[in-house]
């Protein structure tokens, strides 16, 4: 139990930035998985339900993939 408590505590001290990046990866994987399964793009809610989080949380996590400040940067990268 001490082990678990320590683990939980360590998890709590995890930086939000890192946790969001991990969630962003899960979101991306789940999006790809659902796209194949459904044969169309999943909605935000569908991805959220699969991951057991809110749609708002999905949208927040997605931002951690550090999208470019604006589309120009994508185009000219």
């Amino acid at each position, binding site marked *: 139990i001490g082990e678990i408590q320590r683990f939980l505590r360590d998890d*709590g001290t995890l930086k939000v930035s890192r946790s969001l990046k991990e969630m962003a990866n899960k979101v991306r994987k789940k999006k790809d998985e659902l796209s194949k399964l459904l044969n169309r793009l999943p909605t935000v809610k569908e991805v959220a339900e699969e991951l057991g989080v809110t749609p*708002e949380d999905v949208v*927040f996590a997605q931002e951690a993939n550090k999208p470019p400040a604006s589309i120009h940067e994508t185009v000219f990268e």
Partner: protein
Amino acid sequence: MNQTERNFMTLQFAAKSENESFARVTVAAFVSQLDPTMDEITDLKTVVSEAVTNSIIHGYDGDPEGVVTISAAIEGDIVTLIVEDKGRGIEDVELAKQPLFTSKPELERSGMGFTIMENFMDEFDVTSELGGGTSIRMKKRIVSKKALYN
């Protein structure tokens, strides 16, 4: 992070329960500029939920025409959060702040909202006027970046 850095935002939204999750994430996204820990952000989200739910349920009695205002400011590592409504107001603030006190026992609410806010935040202050509305002003220092490894 630059200690002298300042930032602010104000969010207003319809007093609908659908907006509770939206309000939590908005505050979390704003405060995440300070790169807090998961514990710190979870506490802040809980506090926002409690305050916003109070405005919706008690302040406006579920009337979606009501408007809830959240102001957040960052100064160095201090976050100031103000959650306000222009609803019914609180007759006896000291009584309302007592643990387990609730004016809506039928809703099976816990009466612990104010207690949670007071405990999760470093500063906590309620101003209310009967018929005029309620304002909760809170502060929290985000210590994570100094105390912990990344």
